[in-house]
């Protein structure tokens, strides 16, 4: 029994050696939730980023040097991403940071990268404050508000449904989508019958489903991730609610269809990964990702892949590892990536088309595209 205590102490002291031995690779930092409730998105985004790194290194790297991805687990918690950001900047000396995580950790890391004047790209976190941290912070996906407005156009104009019930996931993702949706609902003639909120930990929605049924809406605008939307949609259908359900990029994974099963048929989502896209970047990405990961690509993987490609191109064009030069290159970049053409405005936001996907016999397929620059314009300041 005594020996065990000593073993515990010894193994702990041995582990104190850091891993920062010098090498001639260009380091890119990557924080993602590898453990905790968001572990699935963490894994997808990390694999998406690793695919991009593999592709770039196989094509000869950048100016003769290979890219190295430094991955850290932030458990989707703000308190975890602060030391990570400082470690990436201070110890690993990354030239660019990329967030493959949710909004809370991304927001706290963005402030640190801005202060250290090192460019930081958010792959899919949608909180408006991220890019407000400063001119060194960029985002390759559209904001929650923008996607919410697209949802209003999809329901009100494209589908022509007027009586809508909103089921909002109570976190920053759900709240900013709802804000965008409400902002444009009237313009598209939508009457919001009711709005219900649920917590990210909920999987059984008996009460909300019962109330929605009594509201008898034409359509439901429900925000959530696949692990909440899957059960929600299947319980809606099982209780006899037949109207169309509109979701967002949070649903965008084959796991959603696996969970909801037949109930997923006909669900439409606003996202940025078009499975039926003819564009080579997207088609290649979908094929390569499935080969690497062993499961079909999802929006989170595509976003991380895009963010790494943006960083790599910027380093190549800057032809140097000076963070300031890389930042300027990112700001002026124009790249056709798996999630659309990436061009940043003065605030570091992108303006790209919204790909609407629909579940048809168990697979995501293109439903329609929204390319209304005025509607989808991200904030400037």
């Amino acid at each position, binding site marked *: 029994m005594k020996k065990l205590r000593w073993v515990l102490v010894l193994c702990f002291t041995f582990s104190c050696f850091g891993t920062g031995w010098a090498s001639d690779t260009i380091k890119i930092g990557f924080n993602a939730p590898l453990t905790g409730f968001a572990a699935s998105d963490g894994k997808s985004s990390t694999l998406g980023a690793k695919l991009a790194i593999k592709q770039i290194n196989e094509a000869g790297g950048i100016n003769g040097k290979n890219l190295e991805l430094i991955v850290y687990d932030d458990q989707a918690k703000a308190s975890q991403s602060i030391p990570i950001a400082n470690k990436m900047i201070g110890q690993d000396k990354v030239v660019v940071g990329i967030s493959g995580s949710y909004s809370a950790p991304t927001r706290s890391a963005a402030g640190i990268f801005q202060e250290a004047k090192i460019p930081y790209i958010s792959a899919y976190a949608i909180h408006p404050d991220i890019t407000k941290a400063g001119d060194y912070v960029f985002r390759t996906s559209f904001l929650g508000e923008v996607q919410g407005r697209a949802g209003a156009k999809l329901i009100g104009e494209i589908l022509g449904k007027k009586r809508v019930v909103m089921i909002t996931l109570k976190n920053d993702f759900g709240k900013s989508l709802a804000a965008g949706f409400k902002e444009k609902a009237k313009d598209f003639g939508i009457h919001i019958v009711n709005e219900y909120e649920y917590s990210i930990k909920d999987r*059984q929605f008996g009460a909300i489903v019962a*109330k929605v049924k009594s509201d008898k809406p034409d359509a439901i605008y429900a925000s959530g991730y696949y692990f909440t939307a899957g059960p929600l949609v299947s319980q809606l259908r099982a209780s006899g609610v037949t109207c169309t359900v509109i979701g967002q990029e949070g649903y965008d994974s084959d796991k959603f269809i696996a969970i909801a099963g037949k109930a997923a048929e006909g669900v439409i989502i606003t996202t940025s990964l078009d499975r039926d896209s003819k564009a080579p970047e997207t088609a290649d990405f979908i094929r390569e990702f499935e080969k690497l990961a062993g499961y079909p690509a999802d929006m989170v993987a595509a976003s991380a892949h895009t963010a790494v490609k943006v960083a790599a191109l910027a380093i190549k064009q800057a032809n140097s590892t000076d963070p300031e030069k890389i930042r300027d290159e990112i700001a002026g970049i124009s790249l056709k990536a798996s999630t659309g053409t990436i061009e940043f405005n003065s605030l570091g936001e992108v303006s790209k088309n919204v790909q609407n996907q629909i579940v048809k016999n168990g697979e995501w397929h293109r439903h329609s595209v929204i390319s209304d620059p005025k509607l989808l314009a991200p904030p400037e300041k």
Partner: protein
Amino acid sequence: MLFIELFIQGLIQGSTYAIIAVGLTLVYGLLRVLHVAHAGLFTLGAYLGVAVTNQTGSLSLGILVAALAAGIVGMGIYRLVYEPMLNKPPYVALIASIGLYIGMEELFRLVFGPFGLSFSSAPLQTVVVVFGIHLRACQIIAVVTNVVLLGGLAWVAQKTRIGTGWRATVDDPQMSACFGIDPIKVRYRVFFAGSALAAVAGVLVALLTNLVEPTMGAVPSYKSLAIIVLGGLGNVMGTLIASLILGIIEAFGTIYIGDFLDRDAIAFAFLIIVLMIKPTGLFTSR
């Protein structure tokens, strides 16, 4: 119409809480230990239930394997974790149990992957319309299993010799030992029964949501603690009733005071109000 549906949904939710919490209240009644890792057995049961059903195609075999495995693991936890800590202050077992739960959650993620498991074709999903209310077979079965299992357990506790043995050991282990009841055997039986029930609850929830994830035990791990306090510690019937009441309050709460308190806050607000009025919980603890 809406009220009936909310009431039924509350019953369904309450039933899953009850089956999990009953194991916990028995363990607490017996050892005064807050067995947080009990929720890990709930998740273990869900994983095994779905995995076996997907392989063999038979749900009943899945439930059986899940219950048996969880029961054995539960006994193992008693022997390796709690037995050496019985004479230690209560927080020791509490922290060890929380550490164990975190470890179990991580093991599930490492073994089964972060994406969670679903039924290849979820059984018991046929919809039955009962005077206008659409209910899935699994929802009805959840309530029925709860009533049968807990009713049976309460009957065993009241009427049979084993049951009285359990209750006697809860009241006074030394005294019941004088009457030939081996308290150690009773503890193993209680851990087996409680863990098996948690596994059954796991499979039931997997049927309701068709999603098994490493962290699915997080909510039950703390909510069932609130329930065993409400239901009176070690009191099976009390736990059943407290779980159903909580399920119903949560169902109505999410709709009517949803924008003031979230689901967990409603449950704990209810608990604290009850404790302020009656510090020993809704029912006298055995």
